[in-house]
């Protein structure tokens, strides 16, 4: 999968600014740069993350389910109240 489109990245940045708890000590342009960088990182490391899965999950789960699992883990680790 390629990186997100420019519009998708803009949508992510907008949603982040709407829903983040804050305080946010960076500018709009910094938010967008962070979104771009993270999306690029995910793109670069997607194959590596997939290889980290045990064979059964790697073969049996869909890409969407793997992404959902990753989301749950990140939220549980880093998002307060999750």
């Amino acid at each position, binding site marked *: 999968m390629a990186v997100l489109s420019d519009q998708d990245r803009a949508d992510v*940045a907008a949603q982040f*600014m709407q829903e983040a708890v804050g305080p946010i000590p*960076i500018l709009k342009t910094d938010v967008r740069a962070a979104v771009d960088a993270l999306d690029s990182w995910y793109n670069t490391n997607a194959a590596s993350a997939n290889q980290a899965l045990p064979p059964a999950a790697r073969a049996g789960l869909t890409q969407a389910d793997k992404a959902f699992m990753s989301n749950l883990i990140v939220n549980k680790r880093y998002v307060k109240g999750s």
Partner: protein
Amino acid sequence: MPPSTAFAALARRNNHFVLAYDATTSESCDFESILSRRYGGGGITLGIAWMAATATTGAVVWSAQWERHDTATDLDADSFATAVNSAAATAPGTSGFTAYTTIAFSNAQIDGLLVGEHFRLRVTRLPADSGDTMSGDAQILGCECRET
């Protein structure tokens, strides 16, 4: 009164009602009143009390425009005068603090409004302006109109 599209949403912050203006999409809200009969023609300064929803840095650019409602204006269509923009207004460095920003209008910039006439004042955030750098919503607490 919010416009039918692209309007600032009414929100609550610690039981204060605020109008939340988005950081990426230009949004507006309309305020309606009658120009005080004590106005002497010296121009009007709009004062905006606002907060940053989450940001502690950056700036917001506000814009405002007047619409006179005299006996010859058809209110079934908009007829706002040219908008006047604020300078880039810096967000407070502490979340929850209030900032005060003004926009000065000459008498010629208030759409020919006369004392005793009803009007609409549209207040807009301009997130596409190069000076609007603040992330997150800008929340208006209230507005004041006083003679300059």
